[in-house]
């Protein structure tokens, strides 16, 4: 219990430190605030244009697509805030031989790697996403219950956790290769896989994106809960279980990599 309190305190301590840093570089912060907002608008445009071609994508109406886009924006701004910088620092430390300082600290290494950094510039995006969400719900004249919202938040957390685990496993590969620039850009590059409704994936694509590596479910499942159109509860259960297993694998792989690092590194 004492440990949990310590980790909770350190987590917020780091957030405070990064807020101080952000104030140091105000211009930079405002710039990125605007750029990330610009990209959100662009993305919205992109999919709005496509949806408006026939008004329907894989059984999702225009307004339902907007809700999906809102959920994506919320999720995406979260992972850009909390995962991108941490993973970048993690892989850089490994490639530059600076990883020892992580191992020397009396704190769980995986926790430290995920909490040492963050970025506030995506706040505006996050707010936009939330705004879009409620606007879409109103357009659709939907009023999800508290239970629905609770379930939505739960599933959203699992989605974030899943992306984290996948990203962390990829980043941990940095222990095993000599050098791979832009290893941190792999996950951001496949974000489109969860910008679209999962019904878009058929055949082999479906097996790949909804079973083997269920990135396709990441935004769709939480959205379906709010929209009251859950296609399959077993899929939700599958996704949650898959996420937990991936998290366990990420920890196991990390420990394995540390062993290798300490055995052969100089």
């Amino acid at each position, binding site marked *: 219990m004492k440990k949990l309190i310590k980790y909770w305190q350190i987590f917020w301590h780091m957030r405070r430190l990064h807020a101080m840093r952000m104030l140091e570089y105000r211009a*930079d912060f405002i*710039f*990125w605030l605007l*750029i990330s907002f*610009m*990209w959100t608008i*662009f993305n919205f*445009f*992109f999919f709005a*244009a*496509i949806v*408006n*071609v*026939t008004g*329907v*994508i*894989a059984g999702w109406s225009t307004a339902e697509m907007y809700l999906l886009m809102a959920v994506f924006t919320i999720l995406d701004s979260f992972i850009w805030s909390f995962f991108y910088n941490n993973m970048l620092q993690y892989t850089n430390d490994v490639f530059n031989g600076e990883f020892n300082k992580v191992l020397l600290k009396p704190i769980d290494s995986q926790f430290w790697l995920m909490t040492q950094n963050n970025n506030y510039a995506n706040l505006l995006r996050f707010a936009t996403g939330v705004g879009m969400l409620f606007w879409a719900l109103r357009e659709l004249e939907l009023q999800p219950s508290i239970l629905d919202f609770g379930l939505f938040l739960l599933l959203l957390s699992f989605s974030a956790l899943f992306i984290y685990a996948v990203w962390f496993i990829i980043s941990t590969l940095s222990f095993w290769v000599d050098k*791979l*620039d*832009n290893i941190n*850009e*792999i996950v951001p*590059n*496949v*974000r*489109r*896989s969860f*910008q*679209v409704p999962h*019904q*878009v*994936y*058929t055949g082999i*694509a479906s097996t790949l994106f909804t079973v083997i590596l269920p990135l396709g479910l990441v935004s769709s499942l939480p959205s379906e809960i709010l929209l009251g159109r859950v296609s399959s509860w077993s899929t939700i259960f599958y996704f949650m279980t898959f996420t937990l297993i991936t998290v366990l694998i990420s920890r196991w792989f990390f420990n394995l990599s540390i062993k290798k690092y300490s055995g052969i590194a100089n």
Partner: protein
Amino acid sequence: MWNKWKTLYTRYFINAIEYRSELIVWFLLSVIPTLILILVWQSIFNSQGNIQGYGLGEIIQYYLLVIFIGELTASHFENWWVRMIREGKIDLFFTRPFSLQQTIFIGDLSRKTVYALLTLPLFAAIWWAMSQVWVIQPFNLSAAVLLGFVVCLAISYAIYFFMGLIIVFMGFWLEGAQSLEHFKWIIVTLLSGSFIPVTFLPDWLKNLVNLLPFKYMYAVPIGLLQGKTTISITELIYPLSFIVCLWIIAQILWRLALKRYTSAGG
């Protein structure tokens, strides 16, 4: 004189080969978002034959050509060169027989050659694989069309290059000038017809695209190959003048930078 160009070119060529495995990985990764987009279009078509003059096969062809043109003409050198400028590493260019601009150009050209050699076979394979799943129309080829296509490729490269050069030169004044790339990407993506065939754009945007010269980067060359557009020699004066304007701006920035850089004593 030819020898010194060859030497510079070869040096950058060898350098690019060093990173060959990375280049291949990145190419494959960058194809994924397009593949997903194609799946979206597939579900939009939903066994409809034709939407606003495009069949599914033509849409797929469209996006594959977007990849093709992008791979050959887009500029990615801003990050590296801005960093060189900010770190003061370009002193050599004031004494060497090559100007900074020439070096950036030759370097970019040779890197693109390596990239093309590595990725075109992959690209052809992907094209072939997709044509096994979907019906993709043959091209409307004739000497005139081919010529027009190549001219547009050159125009696209020139626009990308000079925009990139301007961004690089901004590095003499701005810390983090490479972030200006975001504006480049958004402008080009929105206004060149690279994210969706122009027909599907909302009217106001359609008019803007037709007004501005960016359409010659993607929309026009693809339209030529698909037999939906024609161009006349006289209309090329417009994009060419635009390129000249960009070139002028770049030269002005370079003169200003020279004055500032050398007077400050490096």
